[in-house]
C-alpha cells in the first residue's frame, strides 16, 4: 500500500538524493511521510501543509524535533537533511576555492521582496574581498531587471534551477549543481540565515550573514521571525564568524551527525530494498 505523501518531499530533488543513498534509481519515490524541505526555526514543516494523523514527519535535526514536539506535533522523526546525505555520497575532491557565493534572500512563489537590490550590492562590494557569484531564486532569475542589476555590478549571476512542484518539472540535479557551485567558493553569504548558508558551511565554505534582510510584503513573524534568528543563531550572523562554531551549528541544524543507515531509511520511508545492497551500506557517519 502506498501512503499519502506531500509533493514538497520532491522539492530540490530531495527525495532523489535520499533514494540514491538508499541504492534506488527512482528520481521521485513516494516517501511515507512528510519530509522537512528547508531550514526551519519552527516545527520543521511548511505552514501550508495539511497533515494526516499517523503520517510521520521526517525532520532534519534533534533541535527541530524537540521544538515540534513542544508545539504538539507527534510522529516526528529525525532523519537529517538530504544535503548531509548528498555530502556523504559526494566526497569533496581537493579543489581550488575562490571568492564568495552570495544568496540574496528570496520569496517563494506568490511572495514579493521589498528592499533595494542596489543597497545590497553596495554592501556586498564593500565586504567581499574576492570575486562574487550571485545565486538568484528562479523567480528573480527570470526577472530580467533583477538579473541585470546584479550583472551590471560585475557579479556572475547563476540560478540552481526550479525546485519543482506537484510532481511537475522535478529537478533531481538541483542539489548537485548547488554543491558543485559551493565547492568552487571559499565563502557563502546571504542577507538572511537560510538553508543555503548552512549548506555552504557544511560543504566547507566560511559563512557570513549581513546586509538588508529585505522584508517580504506582509511578512509574518512565525516562530519569532528575523528577530529570533538574530538572537538564537547569533553565532552565524556577521561578515566574519567563528568557523569552528559555525560548522558545529551547521552539523546540528542539518542533522549531519544523525544520518541513518540506508536500511533504516528505507524502512522508515516504506521504500523497497535495492536489487543489490552490497556496496552502498554506509554507516551514516559524516567524517569529512
Amino acid at each position: 500500500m502506498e501512503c499519502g505523501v506531500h509533493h514538497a518531499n520532491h522539492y530540490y530533488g530531495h527525495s532523489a538524493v535520499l533514494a540514491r543513498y538508499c541504492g534506488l534509481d527512482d528520481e521521485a519515490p513516494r516517501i511515507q511521510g512528510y519530509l522537512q524541505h528547508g531550514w526551519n526555526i519552527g516545527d520543521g514543516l511548511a505552514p501550508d501543509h495539511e497533515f494526516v494523523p499517523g503520517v510521520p514527519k521526517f525532520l532534519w535535526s534533534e533541535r527541530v524535533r524537540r521544538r515540534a514536539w513542544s508545539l504538539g506535533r507527534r510522529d516526528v522523526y529525525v532523519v537529517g537533511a538530504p544535503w548531509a546525505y548528498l555530502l556523504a555520497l559526494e566526497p569533496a575532491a581537493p579543489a581550488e576555492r575562490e571568492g564568495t557565493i552570495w544568496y540574496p534572500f528570496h520569496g517563494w512563489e506568490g511572495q514579493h521582496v521589498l528592499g533595494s537590490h542596489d543597497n545590497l550590492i553596495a554592501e556586498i562590494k564593500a565586504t567581499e574581498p574576492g570575486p562574487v557569484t550571485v545565486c538568484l531564486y528562479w523567480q528573480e532569475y527570470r526577472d530580467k531587471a533583477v538579473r541585470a542589476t546584479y550583472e551590471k555590478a560585475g557579479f556572475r549571476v547563476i540560478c540552481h534551477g526550479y525546485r519543482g512542484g506537484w510532481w511537475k518539472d522535478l529537478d533531481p540535479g538541483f542539489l548537485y549543481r548547488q554543491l558543485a557551485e559551493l565547492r568552487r567558493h571559499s565563502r557563502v553569504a546571504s542577507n538572511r540565515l537560510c538553508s543555503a548558508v548552512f549548506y555552504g558551511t557544511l560543504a566547507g565554505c566560511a559563512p557570513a550573514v549581513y546586509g538588508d534582510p529585505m522584508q517580504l510584503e506582509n511578512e509574518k513573524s512565525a516562530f519569532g521571525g528575523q528577530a529570533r534568528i538574530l538572537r538564537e543563531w547569533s553565532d552565524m550572523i556577521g561578515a566574519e564568524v567563528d568557523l569552528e562554531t559555525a560548522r558545529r551549528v551547521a552539523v546540528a541544524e542539518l542533522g549531519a551527525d544523525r544520518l541513518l543507515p540506508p536500511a533504516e531509511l528505507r524502512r522508515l520511508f516504506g521504500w523497497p530494498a535495492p536489487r543489490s545492497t552490497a556496496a552502498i551500506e554506509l554507516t551514516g557517519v559524516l567524517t569529512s
Partner: protein
Amino acid sequence: MTVTLIGGEMLHWSDRPATPALPPVGEITGRTLVAGPHPHDLIASLPAERTTVLLRGLPDAEAVAGLGVTVWAGSLDKVAATPAFDTIVALDGLDRLCSAEAETLDGWDERLAHLLTLLRPGGRLLLRVENLFGVHRLIALPEALGDSEWLVADDRDPHRPAGLAALRERLAVVREYAAYGDALLSREVLADAELSGFVSATIAGALATTGEVLADPAALATRALRHGLALELAPAWVVVTGGAADTPDAVVGAKAVAAADPPRGRTLEDELIAAAQRRDLPAMRALLTAWQKSPAAGVPAAQVIAGSASPAASDLTPLAPAGDPLVALSHFAAAAIRGDIAHLWPAPADEAELTALIAGMTGREVEPADVPPLPSRPAPGAVRELTAERDRLARELAEARAKHEFYEQQIRGRDAELKRVRQINAVLSATAPGKAVLGGLKAGRRAVRAVVKRGRA
C-alpha cells in the same frame, strides 16, 4: 526407611516444593530436619542416616521414604520432644508445615517458635519467608482461594514479621537473600552498583508470568532494583542463622556465585533504552550495531552485560546461550514497547514492525513478515501491557481511517486530473495539427512495417 505417622497426616494430599532446585546456601551439617516439601535432589544430597524429613501429605512422605531418610508424616504441632537438630532446612517457608488437622500453631510466629525448640542453641536455620508485599503480590489480581488455603497468610498478623527489619529482630540472621524464583541474591550483591546488570538479568530471567497479572513482573522488579528496592520487594527472602562463613554471595542456576565472578556493568537493554530516552539515537545505533556484530548477537539484550567502561565498544558479555539474532532483536522490540519508547519510531509499532526497523538501525534489511514470533510473549496477561496495546491499536485504527479518507481525496483529485487530461487529448486529436501529428505517426508506423517486411523477404 518407613514412614512414621506422628499425627495429623493428610492421607490424600501432596505439596509441590516451592523451589525447583537446590539452593546451596551454605553447609548443612549434623542432624538435620528438612521441614516441609523440598526437592528430592536436596534431600538425596544429605547423609540419609542423619536426616529427618517432615511432611504433612502421606503420599509425599512415602515418596521421600525411598531416599533412605527418616520420614515423619504429620503436622508440625505433633512433633514431640526429640533430640535437638543441628540444622533445620525450611526453604519452603512455614506455611505448609501444619496440616488441616492441626489444633495449634495457627500463627506464623508460633510455628517458628515451635520449630526453634527443635533446633539446638546456635544451630543453623535456613528459612524462606514469603514477602507479603513482594512484586508478585503487587501485580496480583483478585483470585479465588485454593484448597491449601484453609488458613491465609496475612500481614495484619502483628507477630508475622512484615519486612526484613522485623525478621532480623525476631531471628539472629547472619545472611539474608532476596529470592527471585530460584535465584538468591544477597543484600551485598544487590547493593553493588557494578553488578546491576548481572542482577537485573538474573531477576528478569527468574520471573515468569503465569496467568493474569497487573503488569509484567520482570519489568517491575528490575525497576525496583534501579531504585534500590530489590531486597525489600523480593517475592521472598531466605535467611540464614548460625555462622555466616560459608554462605555464598548469590545462588543462580543452583550454583553458588561469588560477588567477584559476574561481569561488571549494566545490561545492554538498559543501556539501549537509556540512550533512547535521551533521544540519542546515534548512540543507540552504535550500540545496536556493536551488539549485532558481536558473538552475543543472538542473546537477548536483557541477558547481555555491557562493560561499564565503554558500552559502545564491543565488550559485551552474554549471560545466556545465543539463539537467532532476529529473535534477540524481537525481544528487544518487545522491551521497547513495554518500556514505552515505541513512539520513537513510526507506527505501526507492533513487535514485528519494530524489529524490522531496529534491524534497519544496524544496517540489516528485514521484512516484518520474516520476523519469527517470540516463543512466549513476556507478559501474556498483564493488564498494563494489554491496556497499552489496546490504546496503540485504537490509535492505529483512527490513523488508518484518517489516511483512508486522505487517499479517497487524493484519488478523487487524480481522477479529475485524468479526466481533464483525456479531454484535452480528445480535443487536441480532433484539431488539424493534432490529426497531422497522429497521421504522421500512423504513416511512420506503416513505413517501418514495410521496411521490416522487406527485410524479412
